[in-house]
């Protein structure tokens, strides 16, 4: 059984492993990190892998250590994800993602009349709030519209 799992996600020599991503969100994690077809490093990912705490996604980025600021954006869509920095096949650093208090150029404002959805030379800007009742919500710095659900669907 272990052997089979190892085949799914090979160990990497150097880079970043994002583990415990909410099942089904791996592609959105790539989007939130701005990883597109132009990205040169090798990426591998698994979706709906069975872990000790149920299903999860895992993303591995070889040869590249992403910044804490970039990685913390993942908390917007998967607050329980963990970040493992790998060097020489060893985990040298392991952290939980931390919800940022502010994000820029990551999410599109859902208000179609917002100035950030026009052709002005600006990036979208949101304050990030978290509450017991509503979970993670984003408030547009420009128009004050609040995004309280489907954040992943509004990624830029």
């Amino acid at each position, binding site marked *: 059984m272990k052997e089979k799992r190892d085949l799914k996600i090979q160990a990497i020599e150097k880079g970043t492993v994002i583990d415990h991503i909410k099942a089904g969100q791996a592609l959105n994690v790539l989007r939130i990190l701005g990883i597109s077809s132009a990205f040169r490093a090798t990426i591998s990912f698994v979706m709906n892998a069975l872990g000790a705490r149920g299903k999860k996604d895992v993303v591995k980025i070889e040869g590249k250590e992403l910044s804490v600021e970039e990685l913390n954006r993942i908390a917007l869509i998967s607050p329980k994800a963990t970040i493992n920095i790998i060097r020489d096949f060893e985990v040298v650093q392991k952290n939980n993602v931390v919800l940022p208090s502010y994000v820029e150029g990551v999410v599109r404002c859902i*208000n179609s*009349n*917002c*100035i*950030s959805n*026009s*052709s*002005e*030379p*600006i990036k979208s800007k949101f304050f990030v709030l978290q509450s017991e009742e509503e979970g993670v919500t984003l408030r*547009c*710095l*420009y*128009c*004050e*519209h609040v995004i309280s659900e489907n954040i992943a669907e509004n990624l830029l």
Partner: protein
Amino acid sequence: MKDFSREEIDYILDTAERLEPVARGEERSRLLDGKIIALLFFEPSTRTRLSFEAAAQRLGGEVLNLGSIEASSVMKGENLADTIRVISNYADLIVLRHPLDGSARMAAEFATVPIINGGDGSLHHPSQTFLDLYTIRRESHLEGLKIAMAGDLKYGRTVHSLCYALSLYGAEMTFVSPPELRMPQEIVRDLQKNGIHIRETDSLEEIIGDVEVLYMTRVQRERFPDPEEYEKVKNRLKVTGDLLKNADPKLKILHPLPRVNEISPEVDATPYACYFEQAFYGVPTRMALLALATGVIE
């Protein structure tokens, strides 16, 4: 408006009161002498534009007007950010009115001079809120006010901003509207969290004897797919001489204007009518905003 504390609002209203004799033409002021105020209005708003213009001129300032959009660089495809950067070189302050939500905040990022939001999109019109608060303070009182807001409470940005601002002073608020145009529930929840007592109804008769200020707004025809429904609502939410027979003698009626028929003309001559005075109060309020934003009053 949510960015302002009660102390800051009070300070702006105090300044407006100090400048009121100048606004009435009873005293002269050169506070804005040598200052140029640019009015960039990207959508029509005669009242707001003229009262800012009057405010600037009463304080001895010069006014630059964008003129018609059709004849400007905007028609050549220039974005707002560039327009703001250019006009910042010509003026000491910019008053901006723009149809997109959040445009004033964006303008402030690109400007090298202060920006006053003269209304952006469908959400904010802070100078209107300041003049509403000033009117209430001058004609009634702000602390613990019993106020009813009536008409289109769903889309009416003036009532949204006003009730947030009034909540800083404690208030009993009654929202009078047809079910289709009720106050958005997230606003009601926010106000209740701030300890505001709220009552909702669709009848003016029911509440008229029990409020100190009635803030009327226009119900727009285009909000109703069915013209018959619009007619019914329009007539139900109407202030008439008959309705006012049961009013508190100290009642003041406000309206951001323009009105259509929600206040009948017979009300204009009664001591309750306050909406034309309210329009005047736009001048001292905007004088205060101009003087404070340019720094000629600190």
